[in-house]
Each structure stands twice: as structure tokens, then as C-alpha cells.
């Protein structure tokens, strides 16, 4: 019945090949994945360049590959602003988060936050924040996936979402972090190969001349099917003419959320536990920055390129801009059916990899932070229990996101959900991470109030924003991106929560220990078998 709904296409064939390879890897990972460190942190045996590729693979989601290239094609320069923020954000990760986290933590972000504090309230809140970020991010990916797969391979929305969900669960439940890491690595390599090829094809179209390329972009007319406009000029999305008087401030707010949010994304943070030590974590950030930077510069080539090469009728779905399909359709026009199939399969692999990474971080946080440490006071009831709970959580989280994505349907605004994830990460997680490592007076009340303040202000502001529940007309908060308000609120509530409550001698006494651990790596969790 289901099989009658689509025919076997080259895209489907390539995707099946990707799935087959990753399932073999999952099988071998499952043989190795015994014990908590193996399951949650890939045995801390991943090499620097491998983890760099995996970080990049975890980060370059379908939203950024398909979404940003489409946005650059239709809105020009303003779409590129996302690309810039996505790379600069890694300086925050490199400077303040990757090494201290690897040195002082075990499996999750909360390990670092709870180190000096009363562990139960801090872990409970950190786990809630992790689950919030991961779940919203995941639903965004799933909803996007359903729509994209329908366009690419012709499978209907609901079976597409279920297919992605079930495959992702196989990786996570059986293969754990090791399988998830290899899925990311393979996907990152495929995505880079696709992005480079597509950019070269665009340049070839313009006679391999940058001058001719930028000339064409400066009067892009969608192959003569629309009035020419200069896509290199800013303002088509956030300028006052396009977005009203609040547009420019919204752009600044978006920038803040991007540059400070990445360092608080749980699925990126857990990647640093998979390497043997902090120095390798540092190396992996450098690899990730090289790959991510090149990739996001390339987005301008295929985004702008599409606007010079594709006719409007080819990239519109009726009266609506078909943003997510711009890159694959450009591939089809420039490289033929087989290249279209390759780019489609890469997009599918991208979705699968990111969703697996998110599920992994959510289930790790629930099992390690909430189940073991909050409910059972840090003691496993029986050997292997933590991993068993994580596997069950992954299944529950996966099933819930499949259900929610199908229930919300293809109409839900994916940008809204991703914006929420970045805003919560920047406003709730980052202030508390920084204060834990660098401020000796910081205490339990400050950590809890910082997490609550950041979580509530970012979610609250988005709910009353133009992309929230009252729509554009009824919005109470004028910006789509809450960062410019909610990030200061996060820092302020962590700071005030500390100063307004009694000093916590135990937390201050343990600051020396955390500081030495974070700065020198003494006593850090070691890699198995090294």
C-alpha cells in the first residue's frame, strides 16, 4: 500500500545506500557500546578531526543547508547574516565552553553546573532546559523533514516523519553516541562534497569569473523572469522598508542569539565528552570552524547563484516561495538528475543525523541528570541502569516528537521553533555555564534563578512576539528574536539570585576545586583503553 505511493528514484536509491552504511556502523557500535561511558560518550575515544566533522555535521542542519540557501536566493544579503552568526558563535564555544566542560564534566552540561551547587535543584532545571531546547529543535527538524522528503522523494508527510523517526531511534537506541557520531561524520563529508560541487557548477555557469558572478547577482532577475534587483544590498528581510521600524533592532537581536546561543546548545556541548581530553576538544572546535566557515561562505554561491540561474516558475510553489527546495532544484538544473538525487539524499541524511544528535543529548540528560541524580541521588540502582533508562527515554522522546510533528503538520513555522531553541540556549544555559566556571560567589539559588529567568523570558517573549500566539497584529513584543532582552534577563537573574541570597560556603569552597579541574584538566574523566 505504502510502496505504491512512490516509485523508486535515484534519490531514494542513494538514500537507501546511506542508510545501509550507517546501519552497518550502528551494528558494530552496538557490539562495542557496553557501559555508560561507551554509550553516552563513545568511550571518549573519538579523534579531534573526527569530532570536528561530527560537530559540523550536528550543526549544519537541513534548516541551514536548505533554509539559508533559499533565503539568500529570495531575500539576498539578509539571509547571509545567519551564515555569519553561525560561524562567529564558535569563538564563544572555543574560548569559554569546550575545554572547561570536557575537563570538569562527565556526560552533560548539568555536570558542570551542578558541580559546586546542591545538585538536585540545579540538575532538575538544567535537564528541563536541555529537554526544552532539544525537543523544540527536533520538532522543527522533523516538520522540515516531512515537507522536504515529500518534495524530494515523493513520500507523504506522515510516513516520511515516521520513517525519519524510526531510523533515528535505531541509531540512538542500539548504537548510542558512537553510531550517532559516525552518522554525523559521514553526513558532514557528503554535505561538504555536495556544497562544493554545487558552488563550482554555479561559477562554471558564470564562466568561472567572480566578476561576472557578482555582476549577475547585483542585477539578479531569476533568468529574466522577474525585475532585476541587487541581492548584494542589505535590507530585503530586516530593513525598515521590508520589516517596519523594528527590523534593524530585530537583526541585532538575532545576531546576539546566534553568537551566544550555540555555546548553550546541549547537542553541541555533549560532543566534547566524546574526545579523550580538553586539548582534543580544542582541536575539534578548530576543525569544526574550518568546515563550518567554508560551508557558510559557499551558501552565498548557491543561494545567490540560484537567483541568477533559476526562473521564478521553477522555484515557486504556486504563489509561495518554495524556499526549502531552491538548493536541490538548482542542483537538478546544473547537474542533472543524478546530482539532484545526490543532493536530495544528502538533505535526507542531514535531517537524520541532526535529529539523532538531538535525541541522544535529550535522553542522556534525562537519564543522567534527572533519573540517576535527581530521583536516585546520584546512585545507579543496578549496573547498566542509566543506559537502559536513556534508551527508553530516547524511544519516548522520539515517539513524542514524531507524534507532535505529525499533529502540528507541515504548516508549523520551523524558524519559530529553531529561534526558540537558540534563544533558550543563550538566555538560560550560557549565563549559568559562565558564572559556574568564573565566579566564586555564584550559588545554587543563582543557578536556579538564572535558568528559570532565561527560560521563562525567552519563551515568554517569543509567545507574545509577531511569530507567537497573537500573530503579527496582536504582538505585544515587537521583535521576532528575543535575545536582546532575554539574554540580559538570563545574566541578571543569575546575578541577582546569587546576591540576594545568603553566601553558600560549600559552593565557594568547591570553586577552588572546579577552577583547578576546569583550567588544568586534573582529575578529568579519562578515555577508556587509552
Amino acid at each position, binding site marked *: 500500500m505504502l510502496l505504491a505511493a512512490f516509485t523508486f528514484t535515484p534519490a531514494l536509491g542513494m538514500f537507501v545506500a546511506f542508510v545501509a552504511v550507517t546501519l552497518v556502523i550502528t551494528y558494530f557500535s552496538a557490539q562495542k557500546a557496553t557501559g555508560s561511558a561507551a554509550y553516552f560518550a563513545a568511550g571518549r575515544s573519538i579523534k579531534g578531526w573526527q569530532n570536528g566533522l561530527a560537530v559540523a555535521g550536528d550543526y549544519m542542519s537541513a534548516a541551514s543547508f536548505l533554509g539559508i540557501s533559499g533565503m539568500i536566493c529570495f531575500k539576498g544579503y539578509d539571509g547571509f547574516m545567519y551564515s555569519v552568526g553561525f*560561524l562567529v558563535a564558535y569563538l564563544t564555544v572555543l*574560548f*569559554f565552553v569546550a575545554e572547561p566542560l570536557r575537563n570538569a564534566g562527565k556526560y552533560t552540561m548539568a555536570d558542570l553546573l551542578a558541580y559546586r551547587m546542591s545538585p538536585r535543584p540545579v540538575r532538575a532545571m538544567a535537564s528541563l532546559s536541555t529537554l526544552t531546547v532539544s525537543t523544540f529543535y527536533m520538532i522543527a527538524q522533523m516538520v522540515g523533514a516531512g515537507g522536504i522528503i515529500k518534495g524530494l522523494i515523493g513520500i507523504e508527510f506522515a510516513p516520511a516523519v515516521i520513517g525519519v523517526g524510526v531510523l533515528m531511534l535505531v541509531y540512538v537506541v542500539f548504537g548510542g553516541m558512537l553510531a550517532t557520531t559516525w552518522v554525523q561524520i559521514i553526513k558532514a563529508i557528503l554535505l561538504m562534497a555536495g556544497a562544493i560541487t554545487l558552488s563550482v557548477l554555479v561559477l562554471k555557469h558564470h564562466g568561472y569569473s567572480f566578476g561576472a558572478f557578482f555582476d549577475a547577482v547585483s542585477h539578479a532577475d531569476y533568468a529574466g523572469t522577474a525585475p532585476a534587483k541587487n541581492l548584494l544590498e*542589505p535590507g530585503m528581510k*530586516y530593513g525598515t522598508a521590508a520589516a517596519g521600524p523594528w527590523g*534593524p*533592532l530585530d537583526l541585532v537581536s538575532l*545576531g546576539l542569539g546566534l553568537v551566544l546561543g550555540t555555546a548553550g546548545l546541549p547537542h553541541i556541548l555533549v560532543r566534547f565528552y566524546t574526545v579523550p581530553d580538553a586539548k582534543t576538544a580544542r582541536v575539534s572546535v578548530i576543525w569544526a570552524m574550518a568546515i563550518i566557515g567554508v560551508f*557558510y561562505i559557499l551558501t552565498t554561491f548557491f543561494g545567490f547563484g540560484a537567483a541568477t540561474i533559476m526562473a521564478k516558475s521553477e522555484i515557486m510553489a504556486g504563489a509561495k516561495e518554495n524556499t526549502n527546495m531552491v538548493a536541490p532544484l538548482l542542483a537538478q538544473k546544473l547537474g542533472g538528475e543524478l546530482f539532484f538525487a545526490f543532493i536530495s539524499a544528502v538533505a535526507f541524511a542531514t535531517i537524520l543525523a541532526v535529529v539523532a544528535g538531538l535525541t541522544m543529548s535529550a535522553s542522556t540528560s534525562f537519564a543522567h541528570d534527572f533519573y540517576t541524580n535527581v530521583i536516585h541521588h546520584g546512585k545507579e540502582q543496578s549496573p547498566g541502569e542509566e543506559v537502559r533508562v536513556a534508551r527508553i527515554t530516547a524511544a519516548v522522546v522520539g515517539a513524542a516528537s514524531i507524534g507532535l510533528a505529525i499533529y502540528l503538520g507541515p504548516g508549523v513555522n520551523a524558524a519559530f521553533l529553531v529561534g526558540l531553541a537558540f534563544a533558550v540556549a543563550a538566555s538560560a544555559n550560557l549565563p549559568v555555564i559562565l558564572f559556574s566556571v568564573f565566579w566564586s560567589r555564584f550559588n545554587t539559588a543563582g543557578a536556579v534563578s538564572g535558568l528559570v529567568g532565561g527560560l521563562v523570558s525567552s519563551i515568554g517573549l517569543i509567545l507574545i512576539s509577531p511569530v507567537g500566539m497573537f500573530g503579527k497584529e496582536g504582538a505585544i513584543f515587537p521583535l521576532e528574536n528575543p535575545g536582546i532582552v532575554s539574554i540580559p534577563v538570563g545574566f541578571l537573574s543569575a546575578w541577582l539570585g546569587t546576591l540576594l541570597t545568603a553566601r553558600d560556603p560549600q559552593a565557594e569552597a568547591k570553586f577552588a576545586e572546579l577552577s583547578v579541574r576546569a583550567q588544568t584538566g586534573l582529575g578529568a574523566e579519562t578515555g577508556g583503553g587509552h
Partner: protein
Amino acid sequence: MSQPDWNRIAADPDFAALKRAKKRFLIPASLFFLAYYIALPVLVGFMPATMKQEVFGRVNWAYLFALSQFLMSWILAWLYIRAAAKWDKMEHALLAKLGHR
């Protein structure tokens, strides 16, 4: 292995020197990159006319400034790696002195 004496290490002048060395790099470097980065949306958002002026052929200030952010990130990352190599040595010497390596 018995627990290291955390307070003794934290009180060591060489540990204080390590923390100072990190601060000396991290504080100015992060103030710089945050200012440099936020200048992009601020200039593009509030001074679009200036940023639209073309510099090389049709390439304008807005695009050049955005591209320079990639270069800036890679250069700062490289400077960090260089600084961190020095911190690694200080850390190694400190832990060796206290008998932990």
C-alpha cells in the same frame, strides 16, 4: 589515586599566573570579537546607505564586512591556539611541580 589537594593547587602562585595569562588573552579577545560581530548587524541595520556603497566592482561594504567576519573568526581561533599552547606548558609545569604528572 588519592584526591589531589585542590586548595593547595588553587593557592599556588603558578596557578594564579596561569589564570592571569588566560584572562589576559580571553577578555580583550572576546570584547573584540563581540564588538566586531555586533557592528555588522548594527551598521547593516541602521546605516544601510553607507553599507550599500560599492568597493570592488559590484561588491559592496556590507558583503565585504560580512566576509571579513569569517577571516576574523579564523584568525582569532589561530591566535587562541597559539596562546593555549603556552598555557598547556604552564599547566604541565605546575602539575609536574606538585607531583601530579
